[in-house]
């Protein structure tokens, strides 16, 4: 695998030329991203539009006389909720990876009897409507006394991601060459050590993928936080949005502003994570 290293060093001298060669791709990428994120722009636009212009026809493409009422409301009322969502998101990521990765390793490489059936059950599990699952959880949590506890919400949110994680990890781990594992075995490593020091590092990409989705699901979950945590002191940002949805009235400035404010820290996290991952992949390749 040293060829990657050589390739990198081959490319290096011509990198300026490469930069010039790829600017049109960057441009194309920008166009794609702009199209994809247009609804996000529209959301920002609505968050700044005063109520009497929200439904003007034709709509205005830019909030010329912006109102910041929504943002003022959000900053005054919602900032602590962001912290809760962050803690719950990260907790869910951790729990999901810890539970799903070993299982997937086993399914992909250790060939347990009945593994196929298990994958199948995992698939079916994801079909149960979340509302029904939440109703079941409510009863369990009430009896365990973990209703309205962030820890309980982390467990609930991870149930969305664990079946997904196992299936994704399995798909990726079955692609790991068996030579790697038999080599570790030769070095005297047990199954656990092989898993920790060989399989996990090689599975970096899939760990990142699963973590991303676990985080995103936990971040945007509403059903669980509403059913299991709405009486708690530490509420999530999605519940925060419902403060602006009244019986007869919705305060769209504040709803959209909450979404904008909520997505900023998470977006930064995503970009940083992506950079880190991109760097990690290159480093790993060179090390090999």
């Amino acid at each position, binding site marked *: 695998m040293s060829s990657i290293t050589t390739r990198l060093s081959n490319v290096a001298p011509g990198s300026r030329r490469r930069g010039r060669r790829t600017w049109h791709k960057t441009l194309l990428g920008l166009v794609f991203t702009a199209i994809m994120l247009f609804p996000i722009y529209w959301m920002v636009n609505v968050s700044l539009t005063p109520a009497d212009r929200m*439904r003007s026809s034709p709509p205005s493409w830019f909030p010329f006389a912006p109102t910041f009422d929504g943002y003022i409301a959000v900053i005054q009322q919602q900032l602590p909720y962001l912290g809760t969502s962050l803690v719950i998101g990260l907790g869910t990521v951790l729990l999901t990876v810890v539970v799903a990765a070993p299982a997937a390793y086993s399914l992909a490489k250790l060939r347990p009897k009945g593994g196929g059936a298990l994958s199948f059950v995992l698939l079916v599990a994801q079909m149960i409507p979340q509302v029904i699952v939440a109703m079941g959880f409510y009863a369990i949590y009430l009896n365990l006394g973990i209703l309205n506890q962030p820890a309980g919400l982390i467990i609930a949110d991870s149930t969305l991601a664990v079946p997904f994680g196992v299936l994704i990890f399995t798909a990726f781990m079955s692609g790991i060459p068996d030579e790697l594992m038999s080599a570790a075995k030769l070095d005297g490593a047990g199954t656990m050590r092989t898993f920790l020091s060989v399989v996990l590092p090689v599975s970096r990409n899939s760990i990142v993928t699963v973590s991303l989705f676990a985080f995103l699901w936990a971040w945007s979950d509403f059903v669980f936080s509403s059913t299991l945590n709405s009486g708690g002191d530490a509420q999530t940002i999605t519940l925060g949005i419902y403060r602006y949805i009244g019986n007869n009235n919705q305060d769209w400035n504040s709803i959209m502003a909450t979404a904008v404010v909520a997505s900023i820290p998470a977006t930064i996290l995503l970009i940083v994570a992506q950079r880190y991952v991109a760097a990690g992949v290159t480093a790993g390749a060179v090390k090999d």
Partner: protein
Amino acid sequence: MSSTIIERPEAAVPDGRPATNAGLPPRPSLKKRFRADQLTAWGFIAPVVAYLVIFYAYPLFKNVDLSVRDYTVRSFIDGNAPFVGFANFTAIFQNPTFGPALVHTLLFTGISIAFQFTIGMALAVFFFQNFRLSSTLRALFLVPWLLPLIVSASTWSWMMNSDSGVINSVIQSFGGTGINWLTSPHWALVAVIIANIWIGIPFNLVILYSGLQNISTDIYEAASLDGANASQKFWRITFPLLKPVSAITILLGLVYTLKVFDIIWIMTKGGPGDSSTTFAIWSYQLGFGSTLPDFSPAAAVGNLLIVIALIFGFLYLRVQKRQDA
């Protein structure tokens, strides 16, 4: 192609190389080893099994139980609902909503997945060529997922409003006539499919992209040396090697799309009339759409969805078996 990462394990495991057993006592009997192996294998799986039993067995049981009894709000509280067998299912099949809901579910799922997967794949391949800002832009593609569905779906219904929506405003400025996206029985399903494709693209992009990362660059090197062009590389290398990841992406996409309800519910409520009602929406309408919940038929429709997913799950397992064989 011996450098391919994805190789059948059986072929690759060299059973007992010379000198391996040199310093070790004789191996335990095959049967014992097998048992120990199984124990380890299940040890790794145990947490997930515990998970499934604790968190899914009861809800699944509950869902089946709801669908074979006649629950009213009162019997939901005191738990004394009479057993009615398949009566709820028969009632569902005879309901005039059944036919349209089935067709809409198939169209919604099929069209959504076809577009999500194709666009996701194209974007994954596109972003995989390292160009300036590629990783940042790729991260930005995930932003739609950060938004609670109530916000993203509301934004779409905002943009698709017949009178004050920006999409119609663009169409009209090019001289076209506006479309009643959300209020016309002919367009409502199209409108929710478009929004759903948009929401599903990041999912496909991310998984397929990490699939691409796992393909060894050596293969592309070799192909380049052999003079393969970009499209040949895609169809001969990328596509076949991505098969396992693609299969699971499509399967998961299917499972998730089948049960999509938030987007449709927020945008059209399944309307006008039944024109964008899928099984998931129908189940929700029965269960929570009015102030008087109708749990049993709702659960019956929900179980129909599970059965549909089961069928595709079987298909997946068969395809996988064939690939393994």
